[in-house]
Every structure is written in structure tokens, then in C-alpha cells.
């Protein structure tokens, strides 16, 4: 059971206080997109062994969604940050680079 810190209210809490929401930084494809684009958006989620970016909601707390950068192998949490961004903040990327040189995830590295 993970411990996460909600970047919105600042509370550090047990996993049971949060609700997982799958992969972070998805780009929504709507009407007008190709079948491949839409299929990719809806179904092709990455499930890497290592650095991963996820959506979480502080469901039994402040109710806000946020993102977590963590390692799926060691369970290390590199940091959490607001969901209202299209890419991970630089300080999180720097922290991952320090711990996992040469990492990459989707278009980020």
C-alpha cells in the first residue's frame, strides 16, 4: 500500500485515501480523429517496468486529481504534481534523471 502526497492539499496519506486513474498526460482525441489516433488514445496505455507517470485522485480527501511520477519496480515515488499541466515539471524530470539516468517515457526524457 503506497504512501502518496497530494500536491493540492499537502496531505501525505495511505493509498486507500486515493483513487488511481491510469496513465497521465494523455492527449484526448475526439471527433475528426483517425481510427488509429482514437484507438491509441482510448486503449493503448503504456505499462512500463520502471519510470511511470500516473493519474491519482485524492478521493477520500480534497477530491483533487494530481499526477505521480514513480518507479513501478522499486515503488520509489519521484514526486507528485498538479494534474493541470501537459508535461511533468522540470524539477521532477531532474530528480528522475539523477536517479535513473537515460530514462524515457512516451515523448518525455
Amino acid at each position, binding site marked *: 500500500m503506497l504512501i502518496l502526497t497530494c500536491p493540492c492539499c499537502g496531505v501525505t496519506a495511505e493509498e486507500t485515501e486515493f483513487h488511481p486513474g491510469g496513465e497521465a498526460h494523455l492527449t484526448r482525441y475526439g471527433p475528426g480523429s483517425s481510427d488509429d489516433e482514437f484507438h491509441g488514445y482510448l486503449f493503448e496505455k503504456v505499462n512500463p517496468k520502471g519510470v511511470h507517470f500516473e493519474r491519482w485522485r485524492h478521493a477520500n480527501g480534497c477530491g483533487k486529481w494530481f499526477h505521480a511520477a514513480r518507479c513501478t519496480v522499486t*515503488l520509489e515515488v519521484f514526486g507528485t504534481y498538479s494534474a493541470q499541466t501537459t508535461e511533468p515539471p522540470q524539477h521532477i524530470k531532474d530528480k528522475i534523471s539523477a536517479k535513473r539516468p537515460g530514462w524515457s517515457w512516451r515523448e518525455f526524457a
Partner: protein
Amino acid sequence: MSTRLAKGGRLLNRGKPLDFTFNGKNLRGVEGDTLASALLANDQMLVGRSFKYHRPRGIVASGAEEPNALVGLGEEARFEPNQRVTTTELFDGLTCASQNHWPSLEFDVGAINSRLARFLPAGFYYKTFIHPRPFWKHVYEPIIRQSAGLGKAPRDRDRDRYEHFYAFFDVVVIGGGVAGLQAAKAAGAAGAKVLLMEQTPHWGGRAPVDGGLIEGAPPENFIDRTLAELEAMENVTLRTRMMGAGVYDHGYLLGYERVGDHQPDAHGPRHRLWRIRAGQIVTATGAIERPLSFAGNDVPGVMLASAIRDYAVNYGVSVGDRTVVVTNNDDAYRTAITLKQLGLEVPAIIDARPGGGGALAAEAVALGIRVENGRGVAWVKGRKRVEGVEICAQAGEGAALEEIKCDAVAMSGGWSPVVHLWSHCGGKLYWDEAAAMFRPDPDKAPTGADGEGFVRAAGAADGQFDLAAVLDNADAAGKAAAQATGHKPQDTAAPKAEAKAENPIEPVWMMPQGASIKLRMKAWLDFQNDVKVSDVQLAAREGFESVEHAKRYTTLGMATDQGKLSNINGLAILSDALGQPIPQTGTTTFRPPYTPISLASIAGEARDAAFQPIRKTPMHDWHAAHGAYWEPVGAWRRPYCFQRPGETIEDAVQREVKATRDSLGLLDASTLGKIIVKGPDAGRFLDMLYTNMMSTLKPGRCRYGLMCNENGFLMDDGVVARLDDDTFLCHTTTGGADTIHAHMEEWLQTEWWDWKVYTANVTEQYAQIGVVGPKSRKVLEKLSDDDLSAEGLSFMGWKDIELAGLKARAFRISFSGELSYEISVPAGQGRALWDKLLEAGAEFGVTPYGTEALHIMRAEKGFIMIGDETDGTVIPQDLGLHWAISKKKDDYLGKRAQARSHMTDPTRWKLVGLETLDGSTLPDGAYATAEGANANGQRNVQGRVTSTYHSPTLGRGIAMGLVLNGPDRMGDVLEFPRVDGHVIRAKIVEPIFYDKDGEKQNV
């Protein structure tokens, strides 16, 4: 025979006898006994039958690793199967019974399997019961189920109480032996907040039995002194009878405290499950002795050497008068020496090592014990009790050199560190070739949120077996754990200890080394699941080379003991059969809990009323007082109907529908979800959420809307009212309120976070009452001066009114097809309004109705119900709801998905009405059959029933269903077979059965 010695037993209080029964026999033990030691003291060596061959089995171990001695403990509301006698403390009045035999423990018919063992090899069930296929369900399964399983499940409700306890510590030390005590002391002295837990009732672990000197004195002195020091530290918590059950992510740890097992009538919970967050965990969990694999090693009387020593020293019990010791290491000599010093006979020590033992061996020889080096046991004689052993050359194939008479055999195949807790959360192991054991790899510890290791092994659990090394190692682990949690360890040294120097172990995985097939078929690895050396070898030959596959094929290590005794031996046999080193074969995964914990402790207080809080509407008490037959809807309780005295449920439902259609019904609709959506972008937001256009809705008006998920599937529906330019009130289904609110927030926060919209779930802030039926306007007009005429409040409009002196909001909407209003007032005034409406409605025969009448009336009108007509695979287009899907909007959630090829497939099943030809009611979920069969030989289908009721209004069965090309097949007759084979024929009709033109609601 096994018996109580005249003296000794360091854990006993001989002055306090305790009476207990085993299989109805009255027996007596003393305070301090475990059930195991008390049974042995009464010469009850035979305690159970094995799982597959029903072989007679006795106690093997003295602790949590016991595979054989499982009993059904207690009676009725306190009965619990599969309890290990070795970890059950004796109390006065204890009752227990052995398991897995018929008709009796002494004479068991199932033992015939043992004679057939040659025909029941590994994978027997897989091989035998595969053909013919039709036999699976009705022949094989009942037979296997009858013969499978150990204890029987309890029949009565558990009468005890259980609880959870949340705790936070810097350092948790698991295991209260000398290593755990020293580690806790080192961490506690550094100022860390420490919990030290021990699974047995006693501190000190094996040290008092095994001997040695700490600071020049017996280990008891160190134990007492350290315990006193720990008790004096305010930052240290001590708990006995508490097991570390499992280690999980980020220092989460389950502690299983058996509070009341040993004192069943004491006040308080029986078990307490500690849900702990630990900064650091030190596993000082000791080690478990391995059996040796020789023929007949399962005969009652063959026990672990350490267990025989434990029973003698701790409980004053001699397992036999003449005990042969067989070993591949020095530790077992301690058992021989202990027994000899107690005046018991040790006819021989059989040491498989050609070079024999060290200082302990010399001591044994000095005591006059015969030691045979390079020898092994070829065969154990006896069935229900050891009668003797045949010894042979360990290097040979098992030709007997000599028979030695004895009534007990003490075996030791070396020790395996208890690495379970280390491994639960990903800690890795390495194989120590010299010591022949898996040890925790300190470079690959389980890691926490910061990426650093949070578990440290100490003492024997870390592979340390020399007393001095144990204490040094534990002291260092305790200090390191304290340091890692921000404390400064004291600059002290670990206590000095000394023990006799030991010769190294020599791995012996099979005895003798070249044992014949006859011997290997009687050499047990897994006692509980009856897995022998020959089975694992067969599995390897048949290609089950992965340890995980071999485990499942043979069931090695899959019993309730989870292979505590058998895993390493089985792994070694498998590796040998595959001709590869042990580390290459690898281990199976250790999973929590360490030993089984009670299901009730997991449930804790979450039972009965505390299982889940029930949500109640403001009118709940009135309903309860007026015959409500409750239906759970989410966490709510809603009246299904209101039963009058002498009335059946069906009668009540039919009466409620008729009364509402004829005159006036009242529905408590308070559970309906109510979400306020407010802000300059609220209209734009709702246009994305609903398939309809909501932004064009005028203040004062209502619109029925459909909500889909991004996959295109219909997820919720309800009426949206525009309260003002900026504000909408969205009604959701009862079960959907929280989900839909979360759905809205998800999109607002993660996709359209720059939109100016605020949402609030106000479901519980309002009571809502449906006033339904031809007399509904009349009753409202009695209570209000506002204009509620057809013009004053038209269909699908709403307005604020004063009703019975209360400020209320009236929505003119209808889910029944009748003239109908939903009146909303603050929750606190709900009951008052309900009472006023009942009073004013009396002259119209006002009839409160429940959810079933609501369902019937909506089905008569062909209105869909989320969860009946939808199941997560249905899109609005399937339901003929095109009118509610805006063509003008560029986008809404689900729009793109609904354009996918599968969604636009013309053969998707579509909603129709179904009218049975004989007027009967179709079974819910019934399928309409089609010609032919599919590839699996199953009858083809062309539709299914989604809602079905007996309509009191029409006096016959009505139904809705999804049917292939349904809307184009009006008048076709479909066949719906019932489960009893009877076929019901139903005609496809429009899905509106009542008042097709909507004249009744529009007056």
C-alpha cells in the same frame, strides 16, 4: 511412548492442571503447555491423517511450521478448522478433534489410497480426470470435492469480536528472540519509536533451549535483563502473541495479535489486526529446521531434532524412550545431549557427514552416545508409531547395515532462515553454498517511497547461527534502522557471547544419496500434501522444469503450511533432477500472510451494522413504520413496496401501481442524485457531458439528458433543470450520484481545467417527493396558492413555490406517464412535507409507492432504466434514443467512439417491446433463440430481455428487450426458453405499452 517427565519444563506451571478433550477423550495438561506438548504428554502421538493417502501422521515440529498436527478447535460458534496444535496454547476446557479421516482417526477407510500410492503419482488428477469431458461436472468434481480439503468449514456464526488497530513506528522488530531483543534495544536506545513483536507467548526464542553463554551467563539472564531495559523505555512497545503477518509497499506491515485465543472467556477482542506504518522493519524471525528425506520420514515419532529438544526442555515431555538422531549438521547433537542428560536413551547418532561433527560431537561421545559417521537412515519401521530404523551407508543405495530399535527419530537437515517477511515486498535472496541456505541479499532489500531499503534481517533470519555473530548482527541492524529513521545510535558494543564451535553442514537432499525408487516413493517432502521425492522427480521428467510449474503440478508447498518444511528440500530435489545448481532453479514466491490469519480479523469491526453505513432519506422512519419492504440501492435503503397486513409483496406492488394510475401516489425520490453545475462555462461543460444540447435550455425549464463515457456507452441519465443563466441542477440515478460527480470533476480537473465551472453534489441536502397521478395537481393546489395549472407550470418546467408553508421547488416531470410533480425541499423539511401531503391527499386515497411500482410504471411507458436496459455495452442508439443525441454539436464525450465501426454496425441489437402471446411474464434476462448453433455447439441467440414485469394496468406480462434488427421486425414472434425448458413465445411490439401519445402526463 511419549510421556511427561518427572521434572523439567521451563515454561510449565505444574501446579495448575488444565483439562481438555481430544476426539472426545478427556485428557489433562498443565498451564504453560501448548496443545501439542499436552497431547504428547498424554502419548497422543497420532493426531491426523495426510491429505491424499490418509497416512497416519504425528506432530513433527514445535512451532508455526507444523504441517501435520492440524485440528478442528472449539465447538459451534467457536469452531475453527486447521488449527496447528503447536501454536495453540492450552486452556482449561479446550476441545479439539482431528481431521481428514473416516470413520475414525485410528481406523481410516481412505488409507486405502496409501496402498494405491503407486497409481497416484504427481499430476494424477490432471491425467486421470481429463476424459471424458461430460464427466467433469457431475462425476469427477463431486468425488474430488468429497475427498478434498482438510478441516470442515464452521457452520455457526462466529461469536467473538475482532478489531483493527492503526499504529505508526520508526522501527518495528519482528521476532522476540535474542536477536530481536538486541535489535530493539539498540534502536530504542537511539531514541527511535520501536515496536517489538513476538509470535509466541515467550521472549528469547530458541536461545534458552540451545544454550551458549552471553556475557558469561546462560541466555536467560540476557533475556530477562534486556526485557527489563526495554520495558523501562517509554519509546518501546512490546507485544507477545503477535505475528508479523505481511510486509507490503512503503513500510506497511500487518501484525496479527492473538489477544484472546488462550483465554477465550476474557473480556476484549479475540484477534487484533495491527495495520502498521513502519519507517524501518527488522526481521529477526529466526530459522526453521529442515527435515531429511529418507523412507518413512512421515511415520509418527519422526520429528525435527529441534522440536524433540523443545518438548523436553520447555515442556518436560519426552517424545520417546529411545531416540535415534539423524543429521547432517552439528546442531542436532544438542538434542542427543539434552535427552541423554535427562536420562533418556539415545541408541545412536547417525551423521551423514563422513567427517562427523565438532565439539558437540565430542561431548556426545563423552556422554557415551554411539555416533555413526557417513551413515544414513534407509527405512523407518512402524506404521502408526516408529518401531526402529534401518541404517545404511549415506553414499550407497540403501542396503540395510543394521536395525536399531527406537520409538522416536530426531532428524535435522540443517536450518533455513525465515526469509518470508523479507521477501513479501520484493526483497531478493542469494544462495549461500557453504551454509546450504537462501539468505537475504542486503543489496536487494525491499524499497520504500524514497527508493531506499526499509527491511533489514537480523540474527538467524539473516543466516547467522553463531550466538556471538547473531548478537553482533542484530545490534548492527537495530542501530542502522534507527539511523535510517533519523536517530543517533549509541556508541555501544553488542554483548559478548560464546558457543561451541561447529563443523560445517553437508547438504543432504536425499538419504541415502542413491536411494532406490522404492525408498524415494516413501521419502516425504511435503507432509501435508503428500508430495514425495519421487513425485518431484517425475514432474521434472515430465517437463515441469520451472519451480512454479513443478509446485503446482505436484502441489509441493501448496498446503496450509505453505511449504515451510518442504520448499528447500523440494527445490534441491528438482535442481538435482534437472542437473542444475539450486540458485538457477530459484525459489517460489513467498506471499503474505506468514501463517494463516483468521478471516474475521481481516474483517475487523466491519460486520453487521458497522459493515457499511446505511444512507437513509428524511422519510426513512415513516417508511419503516409503514411496512416498507427494503431494497438496497447503493448504500441507500429504499422501500421496494409498502406491505399492508395480510398482503403479499406482489399484491402490494400491484395495488400501488393501480392507486397511482387511478388517483394519487407518493414516491420518496430523495435518493436521486442532485449535482449543481455553476459558472460561466457551465452550459458549454454540460454540452460535453450530455449527448443532448444543454446550453440552449432556458431558465425555468427541464430537459431529459443522456450521459455517455468516452467509450460511447450509456452510463447515466436524468433530468437537467436550468436554475439561472449560470446554474444547472443535474439529476442522476440513485446509484450514480457519486460516480457522476466524480466523472464531472475528472474532466473539469484533468482536461478542461481552464473552464470556469464549479460542481457540488447536493444529493443529501434536499428531500424530493414525487407527487404522481391524475389527482396530483389537486393535492398541490390544496396546499399552495401558486399557479400550478397547465399554463402556470407546464410539462418539463419548474418553479419555486410555497407549499404547506414551506419554500419548495416544483419540477413538472414524469417518470410514470401520469400528471406528476417532483417537489424538492431542504432535507430537514422532507418529513414535514411528506406528512402534509399524506394528510392533504387522504381524500384522494393517497398511496405511497416503492421502487417496484416505479419500475413497472416506467416500463409501461417504455422509459429505460440504467442498469436494466444498459449494462456498460449499450449505446443510446441501441435504445432508439436518437432524439436525445444532438446532431448540432461538434463534440461530446462518447461521440467519437459512437462513430467506430462496431458502434455503427446495423446488426447491433436494438430496443423493442415484447408481448407474450399467452399473457405470462417473461423471465428476466431470458434469451431469444435463433436457428442453428455456434462454434461451441451452443444454440444461436438473437436477443434478450432487459426488463420484464406483470403490468397491473394492462393485466398481462410486458417486457423490453434488445433484439437483432428488432425495430424492423414488428409483429415477429420470438421464442424464449425458460431454464426449465418451457418455451415462451413473445411478439415484437413498440416499447410503449401505455398512453402512447402522452395524453395523461400532458394535462
